[in-house]
């Protein structure tokens, strides 16, 4: 039992934090809001640092790291509301593609080329959640590669990987334009299929679990950022001749959000470890993580806006840059309520 990150993981996180502090300021975020893009100079910087290729196997030019290693980096991405698709590309698409390189999973698709290109910063990937109907896919507008699930036939779901010339992408407006949401029209074919049957079912399930944890990790960073912005504001803003942060009504709002966040953290970290280790309860742990992180972010967002007062409701104030991402990610890959229902179903079945 040693429930902590290693010194090396902390050092990597701190290095990434420093870079993002310089390259992803709120001014930078506003620029991204105005002109969202998948690959940017910042993405190249992150690729050079090894962040984009962190989960790519070393044989394909990456660092071969697991979800536990990624979680602190995703937390940093959340802290600055990083517009680029690190979560979809590095935390979701890469581990799925990497499994396809295993010898017994022969596919004619150029998986190795994709992995190498991703590690080099040359590809941003969009991953479609296995949802019924034409759900918009995050990061789909301008992606270089699409990992999509199809209902498939009697053998269960299929996974397809398509390049941009094989899909029709119709942008859909999101409150957070850096989400680059789009409806993706495509036709499953023999050529694009990379997995079917039990393998595809397993990959779909594990991708959803990884997505729950990775999204949860970004929500941790976002939550802490929103609470910190509000706490800073509460120290500067004076009413009745005192900083508003000296009033208990204000303190208790922020403290409540911080307490929820304090316990969302170990839930996310523990779930990442469970998934990396293939623990039997890993899927449930992922749902606990997402449910808690979504609730923490929803509370942090609401409370932070309330503490800011009217200025927080403006475009001018930076807070909305984080609120919008928090709202989007709270709902993405399963809401808190959906994940709680999953947790309970798993507990009831356990007896």
């Amino acid at each position, binding site marked *: *039992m040693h429930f*902590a990150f*290693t*010194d090396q993981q902390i050092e990597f996180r701190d290095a990434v934090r420093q870079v993002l502090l310089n390259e992803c300021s709120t001014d930078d975020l506003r620029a991204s809001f105005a002109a969202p893009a998948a690959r940017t100079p910042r993405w190249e910087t992150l690729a050079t640092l090894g962040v984009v290729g962190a989960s790519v196997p070393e044989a394909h030019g990456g660092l071969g790291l697991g979800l536990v290693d990624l979680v602190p980096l995703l937390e940093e991405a959340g802290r600055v509301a990083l517009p680029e698709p690190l979560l979809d590309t590095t935390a979701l698409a890469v581990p799925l593609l990497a499994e396809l390189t295993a010898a017994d999973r022969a596919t004619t698709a150029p998986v190795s080329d994709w992995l190498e290109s991703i590690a080099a910063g040359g590809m941003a990937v969009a991953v479609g959640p296995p949802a019924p109907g034409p759900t918009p896919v995050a990061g789909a507008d301008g992606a270089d590669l699409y990992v999509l699930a199809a209902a498939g036939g009697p053998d269960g779901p299929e996974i397809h990987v398509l390049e941009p010339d094989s899909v029709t992408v119709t942008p859909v407006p999101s409150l957070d334009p850096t989400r680059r949401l789009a409806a993706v029209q495509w036709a499953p074919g023999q050529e694009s299929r990379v997995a079917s049957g039990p393998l595809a079912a397993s990959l779909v399930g594990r991708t959803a679990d990884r997505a729950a944890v990775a999204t949860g990790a970004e929500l941790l960073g976002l939550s802490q950022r929103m609470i910190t912005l509000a706490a800073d504001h509460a*120290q500067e803003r004076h009413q009745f001749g005192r900083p508003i942060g000296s009033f208990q009504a204000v303190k208790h709002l*922020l403290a409540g959000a911080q307490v929820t966040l*304090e*316990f969302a953290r170990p839930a996310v970290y523990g779930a990442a470890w469970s998934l990396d280790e293939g623990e039997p309860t890993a899927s449930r742990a992922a749902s606990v993580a997402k*449910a808690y992180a979504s609730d923490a972010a929803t509370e942090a967002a609401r409370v932070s806006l309330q503490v800011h007062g009217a200025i927080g409701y403006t475009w001018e104030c930076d807070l909305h840059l984080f609120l919008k991402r928090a709202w989007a990610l709270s709902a993405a890959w399963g809401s808190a309520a959906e994940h709680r229902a999953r947790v309970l179903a798993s507990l*009831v079945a356990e007896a």
Partner: protein
Amino acid sequence: MDTPMDLRFTPAQEAFRREARAWLAANAPEPRSLPSLDTAEGFEAHRSWERAMFDDRWSVVSWPEEFGGRGVGILEWLVFEEEYWRAQAPLRVSQNGVFLLAPTMFEFGTEQQQRRFLPAMASGAEIWCQGWSEPDAGSDLAGIRSRAVRSADDRGWLLTGQKTWASRGAFAEWCFGLFRTDPEADRHRGLTYFLVEMTAPGVTVRPIPQLDGETGFAEIFFDDVFVPDDQVLGGVGQGWNVAMATAGSERGLSLRSPARYCEAASRLVALYRQRLATDPVGAGRSADAVARAWMDAEVYRLGTLWTATRVLDGGSVGPEASANKIHWSETDLAIHRAALDLLGPGAELHGGGTDAPWLDGYLFALAGPIYAGTNEIQRNVVAERMLGLPRG
């Protein structure tokens, strides 16, 4: 640390778990078979259980062997707690001593004090209560007025004043309390932490019936009670610092191990499953509350392992103890509230019967956000010391 993250207990820890489980299976009383520890009869029954544990060195596993423990670490203690609660063994009548005073005594006590008090605490021979709150000093603990003045022979102190809400106070042998030794000093300064024998001349105890009708706590009156110098813990005038160490234990790692809530959460899921079989619509109305309560306990387990690792790696627990206290007290409420909702009309049953423990548990849980510093005070601590907000 270069140790990779690992949430499994070691084979040695698992062996320790099996040993504890076997001992508890052979020795623990049937669940809820002892009378309430807030009755004279129940107090003695619980004391006998403490003694049985002590005789086989299970009462204070994390203490050094010389004081009756096994010298195991915090993780093994958490493992023991998991087994203890899984066995639904009795509530610990000695908890104020072993979980609150003892960590403080290990940190601040003299060797002589440790030898004098710890073994008797571990065996249940001497049970402790806490003399902190006063009628006019609850949340504002630094406002206490009970005072101590030097005795005429200059060999100790004379204590005068009134303490209240002392859990176990009706039957305890000893009390640890805060008294003002320097009337000139400002609030937090000038306080001293005393160890007082409840049979000392001048001590008067008035039990207070709680809302369940039992005398779980008491008022204690001190009228020129002589306390010798060697019953000062941590130095004259150092009372606030010493008390904050005790409060850290109370809110942080040692008073409420996650096993207590995980066990209750498992019983809640079992109750939900029963209701699902007989009344799926009714059960469905509670589904989200049940899931939330179970998750609250689960994240507390994970949070505790996270904190325990930090402590083992040389870190400390600061204001996070306040966040911790808010979380465990609200978790306890959430679990019991969800259970009462599932029980429907059975929720008002009190005393015997299979459903009744939920109401008793709920009543106990309701005290959680009040004792050990109200949750409102803890939110102030989180806001001021974790988020840097100005003191009001």
